């Protein structure tokens, strides 16, 4: 148990250090910090002096360690475009992204599990088949097309819901959240559907197939033979046994949600870190890109770690051998 946890933590640390190295390399080799600090009229002497002062002549490893130390203090340099420290820009926008990702994730899990159960129990019903067929289209639809379609239907034609931004926010323990106002909740609806739909489809299909698998197993058949009601069967026995893979996939999907938030935020002009990142790619704003890479690295590694540990707790059979994190 302990050995597994230690090995898993070690792996996570390795991944993080690798990601941090890429982030550092981007910073070091792509954005010429001297050009940015000195301007065009600088002489070669100024240059040499500044190089010395910034430690740009030290060995790469020393510079890398120094970069890590600064990153740990939250110092990621200054955004080329906004002229504001990167950490400040990211912190300003992080709550918006996390809020959107969280709400979408909740929607995806709740509706995904419910629909999954429904389609498994009524596996030959008309509605269940309809849901399954449309889910395939859902998987093929690029996120941005869903967003554009929803805006066209609900904002342009029906005029029911806002099409951009976060609406009003109100503080919740000091963090500005949109769910705290009616206006903000309305603004959340379309983006969170857009973002959660794909994940919901996946979870639904997964729950369905796991559920079907479990319902076929011997112990369910025994339980049925013993006269347990369908309800008890479905919910207390079958569902519990489908939870293991659902937890894993859901965890990994949460990571994906943050990735696809980039797309959703652009379509809805949602002021989160995804929109920030796309603008940074557009403007080749290296410090922002590097910091974003590190940030999502930390988020993903944490999610994967938690999922793995949870997996380990939920399913004792797996304690024997389990290699690194599986992809989606």
């Amino acid at each position, binding site marked *: 148990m302990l050995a597994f946890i230690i090995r898993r933590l070690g792996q996570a640390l390795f991944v993080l250090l690798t990601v941090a190295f890429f982030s550092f390399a981007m910073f070091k080799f792509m954005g010429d910090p001297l050009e940015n600090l000195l301007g065009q009229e600088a002489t070669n002497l100024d240059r040499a002096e500044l190089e010395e002062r910034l430690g740009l002549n030290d060995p790469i490893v020393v510079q890398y360690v120094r970069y890590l130390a600064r990153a740990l203090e939250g110092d990621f340099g200054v955004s080329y475009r906004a002229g504001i420290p990167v950490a400040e820009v990211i912190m300003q926008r992080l709550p918006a992204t996390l809020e959107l990702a969280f709400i979408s994730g909740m929607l995806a899990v709740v509706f995904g599990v419910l629909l999954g159960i429904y389609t498994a129990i009524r596996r030959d019903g008309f509605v269940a088949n309809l849901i399954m067929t449309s889910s395939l289209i859902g998987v*093929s639809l690029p996120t*941005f097309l869903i967003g554009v379609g929803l805006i066209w239907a609900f904002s342009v034609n029906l005029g029911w819901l806002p099409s951009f931004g976060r609406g009003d926010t109100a503080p919740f323990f000091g963090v500005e959240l949109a769910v705290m106002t009616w206006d903000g909740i309305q603004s959340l609806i379309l983006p969170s559907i857009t973002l959660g739909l794909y994940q919901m489809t996946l979870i639904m299909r997964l729950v369905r197939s796991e559920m079907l698998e479990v319902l076929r197993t011997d112990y369910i058949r025994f339980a049925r033979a013993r006269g347990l009601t369908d309800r008890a069967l479905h919910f207390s026995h079958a569902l519990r046994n489908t939870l293991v893979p659902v937890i894993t996939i859901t965890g990994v999907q949460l990571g994906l949600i943050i990735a696809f938030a980039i797309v959703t935020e652009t379509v809805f002009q949602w002021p989160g870190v995804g929109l920030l990142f796309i603008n940074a790619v557009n403007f080749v704003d290296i410090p922002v890109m590097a910091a974003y890479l590190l940030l999502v690295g930390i988020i993903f590694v944490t999610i994967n770690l938690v999922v793995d540990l949870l997996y380990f707790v939920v399913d004792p059979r797996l304690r024997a051998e389990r290699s690194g994190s599986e992809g989606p």
Partner: protein
Amino acid sequence: MNPVPGPSSTVSGWRDSDLWYSFKRSPVIVTAACVLVTLILGAVFAPLISPYTPFDPGSLNLMNGFTEPFARNAFTNEFFLLGTDDQGRDVFSTILFGLRVSLFVGISAVLFAMVLGVALGLIAGYVGGWLDGLIMRIADVQLTFPSIMIAMLLFGIGRGLLPPDLRDEMAIWVLIIAIGLSEWVQFARTVRGATMVERSKEYVEAAHLIGLSRWAIMLRHILPNISGPILVIATITLALAIIAEATLSFLGVGAPKTEPSLGTLINVGRQFILSGEWWILLFPSVTLLALALSVNLFGDWLRDMLNPKLR
């Protein structure tokens, strides 16, 4: 995204006739295949089919702008099947050329990912040792991140490395490399697993005994035996690559406006979502949807056929 065949699928028990039989029996798959073939043919022969050359600026007449579909332009009296966009370009022709870019980027990226992934997978699986460890650790790190995000990052880095005046010119190639690099892991993992199984088989031992080189064994004997799963992954990855490309271009960080893909066209069309020129947005969107859906259906079916266990 979709479960991908694991190493156990290498027992390739499929025959062409089975495939053909199941194909004929599924109207959905026949439809998907027809749509796919039509789209591919349209893209390949775009220069011959399309009534206009939409990206030769000298041939455009601005006065043709915003012509409605199935109608003649009020000023120039020219006819456009699917209407024209804001620059007077024939939408039908732009879609054909956009499809060409989308498919070119998608297929090239998958080929790139496949060559890279298969090569690394073979090496890791057959040679093993520290090389195997290194390759698989890199794969693990990369799997921590969603591929679309890696593609975006790589695209950003690629742009940053290029001198500004080459950024648009090289955008397509940067896009291919970025998407390709973000998708090689599935190939490598599958091939590695399959190779490890194959390596211990008698025919490989025999080949080894008669003195064939490692490379000859890997390429001539092992590779053909694991081509089934590679094909499945390639099809599924193609759908992912097409969507990734469209997404990046839609976000304005992919194909340039001078060489638009379907994603770029949809982004252009979005400006007119309110003003009534629906055709500039709708037709490219429908085309992209048809492309992604048909590739996906086809990939799903292929996977089911080659790996009955996963059905």
